[in-house]
């Protein structure tokens, strides 16, 4: 024992940071995030209260006033069979949100489970699962969805199945990577030494530790799914008329572009705003939840 032993003073604790307030500060550091949140809240209100907010029944056709221009009676005009555009836009928000949330959560649950299994057990299981994910990754999301809808047919339920399937590999890959790094930690080894079961290690330790990136992925995924659903519906393979979906509204309005451009402009703008909002909020969450940035931001 020499004099060169440095004594570390553990009595001095680091300054206490209120994690929640730090989260809020970093999250709102980008001014645009607030804008994104406002758009999302408005969208959720539109979707939830569409039956009260909509001035007309979105499915009600009225051939006497088909293709009318925006006026005080029909704020955004009507489509070729006289359905009120504004009402369809509001109900379209409901369609988009239902498809978005159901798809993202089912895709995420399957993907996360596969990623956890592959990462935790390794070996041949990892090889099999991850190569299958690589194979799925080789299909552009919309192609995979096209292939599946070709088999199952259109409609909301099948669009959800197709897009969930297509969104699985992203979650599996990320969670697999996280699992591989988390399971190298000493506390996992300690758990193992204590004889904990695999289930306990996976769901008690690995999953909670990979929560932050998963939340970011889910937020960004919501925008992505809404965009893909709109694409499918635009092609006439997803959710089609009379049900109100933004993608098929754009496609329907396209035929009347010269006389009634608003028929395809309005739903397209709605898609863009919502996807934009989900991306902004997702990026804000990424900054606020990334532990590597802790202390810098």
């Amino acid at each position, binding site marked *: 024992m020499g004099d060169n032993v440095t004594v570390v003073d553990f009595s001095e604790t680091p300054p206490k940071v209120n994690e929640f307030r730090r989260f809020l500060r970093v999250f709102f550091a980008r001014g645009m995030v607030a804008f994104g949140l406002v758009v999302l809240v408005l969208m959720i209100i539109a979707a939830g209260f569409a039956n009260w907010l909509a001035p007309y029944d979105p499915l009600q056709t009225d051939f006497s006033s088909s293709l009318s221009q925006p006026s005080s009676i029909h704020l955004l005009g009507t489509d070729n069979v006289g359905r009120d555009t504004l009402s369809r836009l509001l109900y379209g928000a409901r369609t988009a949100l239902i498809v978005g949330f159901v798809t993202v959560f089912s895709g995420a649950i399957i993907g996360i489970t596969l990623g956890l299994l592959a990462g935790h057990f390794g070996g041949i299981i990892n090889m099999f699962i991850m190569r299958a994910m690589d194979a799925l990754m080789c299909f552009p999301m919309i192609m995979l969805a096209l292939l599946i809808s070709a088999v199952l047919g259109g409609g909301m339920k099948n669009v959800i199945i197709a897009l969930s399937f297509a969104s699985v590999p992203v979650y599996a890959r990320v969670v697999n990577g996280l699992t591989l790094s988390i399971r190298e930690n000493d506390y996992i080894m300690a758990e193992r030494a204590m004889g904990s079961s695999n289930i306990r290690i996976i769901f008690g330790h690995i999953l909670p530790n990979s929560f932050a990136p998963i939340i970011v992925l889910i937020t960004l995924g919501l925008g992505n799914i809404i965009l893909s659903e709109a694409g499918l519906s635009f092609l006439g393979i997803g959710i089609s008329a009379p049900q109100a979906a933004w*993608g098929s509204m754009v496609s329907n309005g396209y035929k009347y572009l010269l006389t009634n451009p608003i028929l395809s402009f309005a739903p397209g703008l709605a898609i863009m705003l919502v996807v934009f909002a989900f991306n902004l909020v997702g990026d804000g969450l990424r900054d606020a939840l990334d532990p590597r940035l802790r202390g810098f931001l």
Partner: protein
Amino acid sequence: MTTYIARRLLQMLIVLIMITLLVFFVMRLMPGDPLIIYIARSGNLENMSFDQIEQLRIQYGLDKPLMVQYFNWVTGVFRGDFGESIIYKQKVGRLLKERFPVTLNLGIPALIVSSILGILAGIIAAIWRGKWPDKVVTPLSYIGLTIPVFWLGILMIYTFGLKLHWLPISGYTSPFKDFALSMRQLVMPVICISIFGIAANARQMRSSMLEVIRQDYIRTAWSKGLSHRIVILKHALKNSVIPVITLIGFGVGIIFGGDVLVETVFAIPGIGFLATMSILSSDYIVVQSITLLISVVILISNLMVDLSYVWLDPRIRYG
């Protein structure tokens, strides 16, 4: 290095097998008997006896076990025999040979445009971080990532086609037939397909450039008195472009995905349009073949990205 490439090729082979399995079985899991559907589509189910149908089943090899059918299909594909389209009444292989060049004529310019413009925009935003060029590029890149491509196409058709009459609103002409018209017709579709790639590349380029500029060796380069241009283009660009290259590889998939939509908007007879039409007319064999073709192209481009990584980043070469 050789072992890395060998391992990568082996992995690719496994993925390729999985892709074929997936494409094959998704089609076979279809509810209903594919043969009956096939016959019903060609319109003579009523005047066919049970024996005739069974005979057809044997003729098409559908009486064999699934694994044998799969094997026959895969070996057929390798010989260029994808099967026959029930709508177009011709070999799918010939159909693809006709349509795929059209898609390439859109996709390759789009890939080049999205790489070059994206990297340039990213560098500009990084160098003038927080100044006006950054304040223009960054929000634009957000819009590029979120705008629905089919809607962008419609906006452009409305503005440049219907209102300003600058460009033809749709259609496709082979560049060998009428070069000027072909170019004019390609402008809007290529912009549409590349917009997402431009935005994604610009964002990645900006952030990786900002990261590299902070490094010590860049400070050394500055302090040696090297000019602005040499430091950025020679020292910083090389290292910061590596992550962008991965993204360009992913871009191939995004371009094919966007291509399906854009070809439909602009009525361009490539494989994307063909895929949509075939789904709407339940021409499953065509959809199956196109999906397989696209995924194989993407698989190969992913492999090329990985190999270029080895070449660009010596840490991987020796690791």
